[in-house]
C-alpha cells in the first residue's frame, strides 16, 4: 500500500514547493475527511440531536483519550512498526499512578509522572527488543499486552483503585470551555506538535525514510534504530497519559481501562490512511480515522439502530471508508490528477 500511495500523487504543476509537503500531509486524508463529513451529515439529517453541543462534546471527549494514543501509534507506524500493547500500557499506567497516590500517598503530580514513567519504560522495552533482537513487533507488543494485563491484576489485586484524591477528580472535571477538559487540550496540543514534527522537520522526514526502507535510510546516515525506539517510547508515554486521563475522567482506576484498544487504535489510524507497512500517513489522518469510528458508533446509537446491527454497521462502514479512499487514489492515479 505504502508504495502505491506514494506512486499516486498529483502530477506536475506549479508551486511544487507547496505540493511537496502537501503530498505527505493531505495525501491520505482527503478520503477519510470526505467519509467523515458524509457520515456526520447523514446522522445529522436523520437525528438533528447528533450535532447538538452535548453530543459533539461527548464524542470529542472520548476521542481525546484514544486519539492521544492514535497520535503515537501513527508516528510509530510511519517509522514502520506498530504497537499492540497500548491498551494495557494505558491501563497499567493508570493503576500504577493510582496506587502511588493512594497506597503510597505520594503527591498527585509525582504519581502521575510515575504513570508516564511506566509508559516510557514499556515503550523502551518494546523498542529495544524489536530493534536490537529483531523480534517481530507483533509478538513483542502482544507479549507486553499480556504482561501488562497481568501486572494490572498484580498491582490492584483485581479491584478498581478507588477513591482517588480530589485533585485527580478535579483534573477530570475541569472545563476549559465548551465542556472540554484537559484531556482534549492535551490531545490537540500533542496533535499539533506531532503533525508539525512529521510534516516540517528533518526528524519527521527521517521517520518517513526509516519506515519506507530501513536499509536505504541507514545508508543515507539515519540512525534508524534510535528513531524506531524513540517512536515506541512516544507511543508508550502517550498511552500512559491517555490511561491517566481516563482515570481522572472516571475518578477511579478500573482494571479494564484500555481493554480492546489494541485493535481499535490501529484500525482507526489505518482508516485514516496510515500504512500498516510504514512510511506513509499523517497524524491528522490517523486522528480523523479514529474520530470517524467514534462518530459512527455514537451516530448509530443516536439514530436508534438496533444494538445488534450497530456492530455490523461499524464493520461495514469501516471497510467502506477505506474503500472510498482507495477509489479516490485510483482516480488520481488514472491520470486525472492533471
Amino acid at each position, binding site marked *: 500500500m505504502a508504495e502505491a500511495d506514494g506512486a499516486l500523487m498529483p502530477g506536475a504543476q506549479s508551486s511544487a514547493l507547496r505540493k511537496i509537503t502537501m503530498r505527505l500531509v493531505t495525501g491520505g486524508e482527503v478520503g477519510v475527511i470526505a467519509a467523515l463529513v458524509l457520515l456526520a451529515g447523514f446522522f445529522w439529517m436523520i437525528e438533528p440531536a447528533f450535532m447538538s453541543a*452535548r453530543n459533539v462534546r*461527548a464524542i470529542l471527549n472520548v476521542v481525546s483519550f484514544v486519539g492521544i494514543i492514535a497520535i503515537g501509534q501513527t508516528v510509530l507506524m510511519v517509522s514502520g512498526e506498530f504497537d499492540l500493547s497500548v491498551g494495557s500500557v494505558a491501563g497499567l499506567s493508570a493503576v500504577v499512578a493510582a496506587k502511588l497516590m493512594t497506597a503510597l500517598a505520594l503527591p498527585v503530580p509525582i504519581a502521575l509522572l510515575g504513570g508516564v514513567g511506566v509508559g516510557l519504560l514499556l515503550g523502551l522495552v518494546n523498542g529495544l527488543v524489536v530493534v536490537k533482537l529483531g523480534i517481530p513487533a507483533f509478538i513483542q507488543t502482544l507479549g507486553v499486552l499480556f504482561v501488562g494485563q497481568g501486572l494490572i*491484576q498484580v498491582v490492584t489485586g*483485581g*479491584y478498581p483503585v478507588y477513591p482517588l484524591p480530589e485533585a485527580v477528580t478535579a483534573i477530570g472535571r475541569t472545563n476549559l470551555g465548551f465542556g472540554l477538559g484537559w484531556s482534549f487540550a492535551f490531545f490537540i496540543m500533542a496533535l499539533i506538535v506531532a503533525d508539525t514534527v512529521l510534516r516540517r522537520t528533518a526528524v519527521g522526514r527521517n521517520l518517513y525514510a526509516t519506515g519506507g526502507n530501513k536499509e536505504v535510510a541507514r545508508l543515507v546516515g539515519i540512525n534508524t534504530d534510535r528513531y524506531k525506539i524513540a517512536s515506541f517510547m512516544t507511543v508508550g508515554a502517550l498511552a500512559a497519559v491517555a490511561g491517566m486521563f481516563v482515570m481522572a*475522567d472516571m475518578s477511579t482506576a*478500573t482494571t*479494564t481501562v*484500555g481493554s480492546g484498544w489494541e485493535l481499535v487504535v490501529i484500525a482507526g489510524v489505518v482508516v485514516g490512511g496510515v500504512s500498516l507497512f510504514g512510511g506513509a500517513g499523517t497524524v491528522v489522518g490517523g486522528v480523523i480515522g479514529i474520530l470517524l469510528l467514534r462518530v459512527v458508533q455514537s451516530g448509530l446509537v443516536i439514530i436508534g439502530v438496533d444494538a445488534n446491527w450497530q456492530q455490523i454497521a461499524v464493520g461495514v462502514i469501516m471497510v467502506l471508508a477505506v474503500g472510498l479512499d482507495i477509489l479516490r487514489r485510483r482516480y488520481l492515479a488514472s491520470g486525472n490528477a492533471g
Partner: protein
Amino acid sequence: DDTVRLLWVQPMRGHPVHRLMQAGFLEKCAELEYECEVVGDPSATNWDVAATIPLAEAALARTEYDAVGVYGPDPAVYSYMTDLAGEGLPVVTWHVLPEEGSVPGLAAAIGEDISNAGYNAAMAIGEQLGGKGTVALTQGASNDTENTMSDAFRATIAEHFPDIVVLPTEMEGFDPSAAESKAVAMLLANPDVAAAFGTTGNSIQTWASASRKADRDLVIIGMDYIRQNLDLVRDGEAYGLVAQPLYEESALVAELLGRLAQGEEVDYLNPLPAPVITADDLQPYYEMLDRAGQ
C-alpha cells in the same frame, strides 16, 4: 490427610466482578481452613470456555480435589460439569440457578434469583417515575445472566407500568469511556428519558457521568456494591443498585463444596435475595467491604 481441597473454575478470570467473587470464595476458604485454587482463562474481556477447561484439567491432574465449583452462566459449561460429576466429584455452580436435573450430576446451585433482581429494579424505577416516562436499558455484553435480568425488567415494566416505555437495549462494552459516550448519545436521541437501568457493574458509573455530561436528572439503578457505586448512591448521583450477593454467594460456594466434600447432604437450590438498595441501606455494605479490606 483430611484437609479439604476445592477448585474454582471461572472463565474471564480477570473481570472485576469475577475478581470480587473470587475474593469472597478465597476468604471463606481461609476462614474454614480449606485449600482452595482459582483457575480460568485470564482474559478480562473474552469469555473463552474452550480455553478454560484445559486449565481446570491441569489443576485436577496435579491435585486431588475433593469438590469443584464451576461458574455457571453459560450452558457451554454444563457438559463439563456433568463430566466432572461423572468422575464422582461433587460439583456446585453459582450465579445461576439451573432447574434441578437440567444439568446431570450438578449437586447444588447458588445465586440470586436473577429475574427477581430484574423485577426489583423495575418496581423501584416504576415507582420513582410514578408510572410513566421513558427508561434506558443497558447491558455490559450479551450473556445469559444479563439477558435474563433485562428481560425480566422489561416484562415487569410492561406488566405493572404500561405507560412506561423501555428503550431498546444497548451494549456498554468493556471500554468505560466508550460506554459513557454511548449513554450520552442515548440521552440526546431520547430527550424524555427519565431513568436508566444497567445490568452490569459499570452501569452506575456510566450513567452517572452520562447524566452529568448531558446534565439530565435520571433515576439510575445499576449493579454491584463495589465501593464506588455505593458512594455514587450515597452522593445522590444514582438512585440505587441491585445488591447482587456476589460476595455472599461466592462464600456459600466454598461452604457447600466443603460440606459436600465431607460427604454431607446439601439442598440443590440455594437462592439468595438481590434487593435494590438505596441511600438509606448502604451502611451494612460499607461494613462488608471494610471487612473484605477493600
